[in-house]
């Protein structure tokens, strides 16, 4: 392990940080895994040094010299065979016991979280090539960015809508494959706030390489705020599916941390013309055929990722691009170059159109 630590420290110095690392667990599941992994690594490094050492020493010691007599012809030794059968068996037993313990420990979802509450259920739905997240207890649907409260056990129930994917947030839990015909589960309890990258780990077709997502571990207050903002969507227009086509767009320049839902609606002010133009374009370009901006009742626009709060998301394009204006524009104008093969097919978008759409998206907070 010192060897590994030295090597890693050296690497960290020149290439860190490592936000997707399996070696810095930030939750109980990953810590359980890390303990048994580290035990195995210590033993493996010990065996490695020992056996490679003996091998090298043997090679050095018994190198032949010209004129050597024929060495003693030994055919084997039963005693030695028995000894070197038993020793690895013992070493493996040392690994086997904690392995089985860890298997059973990680198999069961704890019934009570570290914060004393019941685990938060989240449904994960894998799509080629993005992630959908539903919070059945909160009524929220979102995509590619999963918000969870600190110290709450997260109980993930997962399914795929197409091929097999694998859900992986290395700092919190191991991988769990996501199947189209059965539910799989994984869980973890985050103990650190922050934004942590995750990825699809099962090859799932052309854009498997860009099926990433972010886990946002929020403080309880921040999580409540996020929940409130998502739930406020229920008061939004639904692009004429339910209400007249042109309505006031909520322009919320900055949301107070604990803004109640009513405040959001009250903040609905005069329409910025650019935003209004963007709203029209989102309809005219057909975006809303696949995308919904409503986290609460997305009966329409469920083919593509839900865009509730898109204006504040860290990443876009399946966790691939930082959600900057520049990247949003690149995504709108060159979707098939950024992520070839992706299902999103939007016609030509001019710079002015892109700016208007982005202005509209920025209102979705």
């Amino acid at each position, binding site marked *: 392990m010192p060897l590994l630590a030295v090597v*890693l420290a050296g*690497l*960290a110095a020149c*290439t860190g940080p*490592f*936000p997707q690392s*399996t*070696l810095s667990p930030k939750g109980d599941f*990953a810590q359980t*895994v890390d303990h048994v*992994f580290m035990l195995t690594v210590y033993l493996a490094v010990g*065996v*490695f040094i020992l*056996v*490679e050492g003996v*091998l090298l020493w043997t*090679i050095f010691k018994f190198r*032949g*010299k010209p004129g050597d007599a*024929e*060495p*003693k*012809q*030994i*055919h*084997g*030794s039963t005693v*030695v065979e028995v000894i*070197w059968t038993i020793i*690895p068996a013992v070493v*493996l037993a040392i*690994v*086997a016991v904690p*392995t*089985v313990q860890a*298997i059973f420990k*990680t198999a069961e979802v704890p019934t009570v979280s570290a914060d004393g509450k019941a685990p938060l259920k989240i449904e994960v739905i894998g799509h*080629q090539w993005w992630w959908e997240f539903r919070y059945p207890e909160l009524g929220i649907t979102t995509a590619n960015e999963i918000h969870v409260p600190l110290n709450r056990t997260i109980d993930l129930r997962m399914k795929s809508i197409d*091929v*097999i994917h694998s859900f992986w947030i290395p700092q919190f*839990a*191991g*991988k*769990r*494959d996501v*199947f*189209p*015909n059965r539910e799989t589960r994984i869980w973890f309890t985050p103990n650190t706030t922050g934004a942590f*990258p995750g*990825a699809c*780990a*099962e*090859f*799932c*077709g*052309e*854009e*498997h*390489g*860009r099926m990433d997502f972010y886990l946002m571990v929020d403080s309880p207050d921040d999580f409540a705020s996020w929940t409130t903002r998502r739930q406020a969507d229920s008061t939004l227009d639904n692009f004429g599916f339910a209400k007249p086509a042109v309505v006031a767009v909520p322009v919320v320049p900055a949301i107070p941390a604990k803004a109640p839902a009513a405040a959001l609606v009250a903040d609905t002010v005069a329409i910025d013309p650019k935003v209004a133009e963007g709203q029209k374009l989102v309809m005219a370009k057909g975006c809303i055929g696949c995308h919904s901006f409503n986290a609460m009742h997305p009966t329409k626009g469920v083919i593509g990722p839900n865009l509730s709060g898109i204006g504040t998301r860290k990443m876009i394009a399946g966790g691939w691009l930082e959600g900057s204006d520049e990247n949003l524009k690149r995504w709108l104008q060159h979707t098939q170059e950024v992520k070839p093969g992706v299902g999103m097919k939007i016609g030509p978008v001019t710079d002015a159109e892109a700016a208007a759409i982005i202005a509209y998206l920025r209102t979705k907070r």
Partner: protein
Amino acid sequence: MATSALEYGHATAAKRSVLVEWLTTVDHKKIGIMYGASAFIFFLIGGLEALVIRTQLMRPDNHLVTPDFYNQLFTMHGTTMIFLAVMPISAMFFNFFVPLLIGARDVAFPRLNAMSLWIFILGGLFLNFSFLLGAAPNGGWFGYAPLSSRMYAPGHNMDFWVIGLQILGVASLAAGVNFFTTILNMRARGMTLMRMPIFVWAVLVTQVLVLLSFPVITVALIYLMLDRTFGTSFFNLTANGDPMLWQHLFWVFGHPEVYILILPAFGIVSEILPVFARKPLFGYSAMVFSMAFIAFLGFGVWSHHMFATGMGPLADSFFSLATMLIAIPTGVKIFNWIGTLWGGSLQFKTPLYFALGFIAMFIMGGLSGVIHAVAPADLQQTDSYFVVAHFHYVLFGGSIFSLTAGAYYWWPKMFGKLLDEGLGKAHFWVMLAGFNLTFFPMHFVGLLGMPRRIYSYPAGLGFDTLNLLSTVGAFLLGSSFLIFSYNIIKTWRSGAQAPADPWNGATLEWSIPSPPQEWNFAVEPIVTEKDPLWGLKRAAGVKVLPEPPRVSGEGIHLPAPSWWPLIVSVGFLTFLVGIMVKHASAFPFGPISIAGFAITLYGIYKWAYEPVDGHAPTT
């Protein structure tokens, strides 16, 4: 006397061109050479694919290749290296050396042997032909359903894979039957099972694995082919098909396949170490039983490839522990190799370099294998670059190092030329350095969270430097095979003529001229002990036996050349291609399949009734 094995003339079919001679040959040595030559070409193609992959991953967000082409590259790299490189290079050694090591004049079924070769070559060409259509397989070498189904893989890409692997499977199965039979029935008088050279044991155990595991993948492939082409529902979700069925079938084959790739490597190293340590293999029977035990356990661990599927704690525990058990016989093998070296007088020739490199690198792959056996830890490592590092330490550090050792060791016997020692050692050091520079950093980039099979990665995750190192290493590794190729060309033109026994060998192949004459042994040998040639030398009180003379083969009966293996192979390929190109026709088989089927049937008929006249070569 002056006639080489390649230049004989014989009574039944004089005046045959060299091309016809090689196309119709049933000589296990010529077949072995063709296996080796074609597999080496496929190996270079697979290596080039790896270099493109590494160049793409050299830096974050790189755009050298499109995502789809990248997926084609890694699918074909895996498929090629497993089925078109490591297996057939092993087959080269099986073919050339099993009969020589057991004192036989050919394999049990020489024409079937030729058919295995031709089906393998045609299957390999067929798979690679897909690149010319821009439709190489792109669903991974494991072809998981439902991604490999018509719905998610509508092009011909995965048709090439499904059909190609079926073709190659037939070659492997036919060879499996052949070598199993050959080893059990055609050993020289006195060569009991426990006097067999250890490499022959490795081949025997490997063929048992082939015979038990290839039917499983064949069944799975036929299911998938029926799903894709005829609309059945084995893996079709809309009709309650189950993708897990594919995973179980695939890995029930896929894990024994790992041992199919590594056991021959064990065998080769176990032959080389005693010769260059000048003392017998330590613990011969322990080596035999550990191989058999590994093979047996190899059928009970397949689900360790599936820990992430969530099979439940009982299944995870069983497959964890079963996998750990395999480390015991594997450890025994490593200790016995070191025991063989211990107290020896090590002769540092190129084959020993590669054999020692094999042990050193395989230890590494074995230990990371134990880490994978720990199911909870595997949840972090599976499908990350850590597992890529692991299996390259096993399959490159293990299999390829050993096969290269075997190539240097047996080259003089196969071609009558000694490879250059200086170039050989340069090859070794460049390969060792390149290999470790490529794959050692992958352990870390995997632990740092880089998934496999991604065509690019973003900056900011800390993957950049390690990937660059791997890419530099890959080119170094690739260049080591340029040294090897140069060595072959140089010594081919002007190398030293190899004596019959250049290394003070222990086994029968070194008792006959290099290269052997067509009939191998002018007089069938009688064996009274293990390491029979050492016994002869000791009895004669000499270090090297006198050079065996090239003799006339008059009166020696050998199987006659035949066109039918090649014709049957072509027919079989045509039949399957016909299934692939069928387009929504009401009739399930198109004219191409019918023609292919007819050719196959006719070929088998003519084969069966071919006169068994044999030919008696004369000089």
